[in-house]
């Protein structure tokens, strides 16, 4: 973890991570109070990945996301209140309540949407990359997916396609060790998803996904490569989700020691310590940031809670453009 970035950037990174964490804690709380319909897949614990990657992206760059997408939205710059409103099924949400937690999108910031079909976002990111190439801009597309998704056929077809056409796509595998109750070692005979890059002739890199600056640096390199038209990179971020997979999953399939070990590696805690140790920030500044973020979240919740549900008949709208 080196600190070559400006203080402003470092604060921005810290804030975004905190936003995601507090946001997810709040979603969990609301869920427990039965205020969130359906299911939720929390990003808490994996903040360094989305923030480290999106920290390198411009507003006009693209991302595609997954069922575990709140963090991606926030990291790319979505408004908290409209994310929260969508999760609560409100009309003011990004998708007018049609999408919910698993299908948030904000095209105004290049967030091309979350798909709940594991692996289905990967070729879509490739298509965004192809579009960039055909339109001849210097945008890039980042594509998030889990290690579980890396066993889907789409992973293979998509990365191969991006490789042969040298598309500006950054494939970001969030390896949180589990796909629901399934440990990676039971569904993959190799340790690193990044090693699969050799099958496509592109660079593959493993990074500590709980070290936001490590992720930032790896993504920076990949984004530069992509912008220069030198093709895609596969980055595997080793991380861990703090909660169960979804809803009320207690994640009993995870050994207690493993959970503790990873909790100790909490990306936010680690980054905070670094910021303090290096005197980038002092405790008071940290507290100030936490307060600000808390307030933001409260505001988002308030907005979402007070927003109306869509009218039932709106279900018939937006089938065709």
């Amino acid at each position, binding site marked *: 973890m080196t600190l070559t970035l400006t203080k402003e950037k470092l604060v921005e990174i810290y804030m975004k991570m905190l936003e995601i964490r507090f946001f997810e804690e709040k979603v969990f709380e609301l869920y427990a109070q039965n205020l969130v319909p359906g299911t939720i897949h929390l990003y808490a614990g994996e903040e360094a990945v989305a923030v480290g990657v999106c920290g390198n992206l411009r507003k006009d760059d693209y991302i595609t996301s997954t069922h575990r997408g709140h963090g991606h939205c926030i990291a790319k710059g979505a408004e908290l209140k409209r994310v929260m409103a969508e999760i609560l099924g409100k009309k003011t949400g990004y998708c007018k309540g049609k*999408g919910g*937690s698993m299908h948030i999108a904000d095209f105004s910031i290049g967030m091309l949407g979350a798909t709940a079909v594991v692996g289905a976002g990967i070729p879509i990111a490739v298509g965004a990359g192809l579009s960039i190439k055909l339109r001849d801009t210097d945008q890039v597309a980042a594509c998030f997916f889990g290690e579980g998704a890396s066993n889907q*056929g789409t992973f293979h077809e998509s990365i191969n396609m991006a490789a042969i056409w040298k598309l500006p796509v950054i494939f970001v595998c969030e390896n949180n060790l589990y796909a629901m*109750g*399934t440990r990676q070692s*039971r569904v993959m005979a190799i340790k690193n998803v990044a090693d699969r890059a050799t099958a496509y002739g592109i660079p593959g890199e493993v990074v500590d996904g709980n070290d936001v600056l490590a992720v930032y640096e790896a993504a920076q390199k990949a984004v530069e490569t992509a912008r220069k038209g030198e093709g895609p990179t596969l980055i595997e971020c080793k991380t861990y989700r703090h909660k169960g997979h979804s809803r009320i999953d207690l994640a009993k*399939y995870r050994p207690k020691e493993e959970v503790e070990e990873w909790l100790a590696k909490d990306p936010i805690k680690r980054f905070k310590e670094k910021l303090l140790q290096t005197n980038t920030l002092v405790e008071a500044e940290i507290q100030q940031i936490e307060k600000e973020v808390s307030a933001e979240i409260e505001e988002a919740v308030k907005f979402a809670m007070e927003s109306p549900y869509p009218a*039932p008949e709106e*279900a018939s709208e937006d089938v065709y453009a």
Partner: protein
Amino acid sequence: MRKISYREALREALREEMRRDPTVFLLGEDVGRYWGGAFKVTEGLAEEFGDERVRDTPISESAIIGAAVGAAITGMRPVAEIMFGDLTALAMDQIANQAAKIHYMFGGQVKVPLVIRTPFGAGVNIAAHHSQSLEAWFMHVPGLYVAVPSTPYDAKGLLKTAIRGSNPVFFCEHKLLYPIEGEVPEEEYMVPFGIADIKREGADVTVVATLYMVHKALNAAEELEGEGISVEVVDPRTLAPLDKQAIIKSVKKTGRIIIVNEDCKTAGVSAEIAAVVAEEAIDYLDAPIKRVAEPDTPIPFSPPLEQYVIPDEKAIINAVKEVV
């Protein structure tokens, strides 16, 4: 008679068949000891039969079905689970082009005793990728059987028939049915394919319904009874083979038919049933055929939106009243 849930009934069928026949095995994402299936249908089975026969797979729907096909044509009887019905789209080639056609393409040389279990249906706010009802796709594929049990009794009996059969069976379940309880005998029984069940007898209108819609149709019938309208509820139990005769017989009696299915209306299950009646029993009809189905939209997330698109008792009652 004892009552058990639809979920337990399915599990009993799996357990009994696995005990009876060592070639029966299960595979799917998280069907094993760490999760027991997303809807807990397979819970406890890995503990009894081991991880080899209750096999967790990678997230690879296409290979799950492909592997099941390969096992089925080499002496095994796989029961594959696809976690959500919407995800069968990922395995459509293996289901429709391979599993369903192998017996035919190869001139009858080999059987494909394969069951694909999957839950369909909306109602739990999990939106467009986890809520569809896609039975019609599979009904349109010759070589497949399609089962649509609505009760614990039917679920158990049909699943046992599916597992013992010689053909690929697309076995549809419904998320909202899993907790529903019903009478299931202790002793062994099977429910044959292609035999509809009259879930309620009536004289004025025939309502054909499947899966969770059977229960809504029964509620509607109960309410209509109070208003002096006698509704016959016919549950086909399998869509392929379809018990046309039972439907036509009921229409001959009532002269009126409402078809209720949870899928999108256009080119859905109810279209086929309507077409059968229009071809083979139109002279017995005293009123237009009516379909009660989801409107042609993806399933939205927000509760008021979702409730709006799912066919309910009121829609059934209105349809009945329009024809009597």
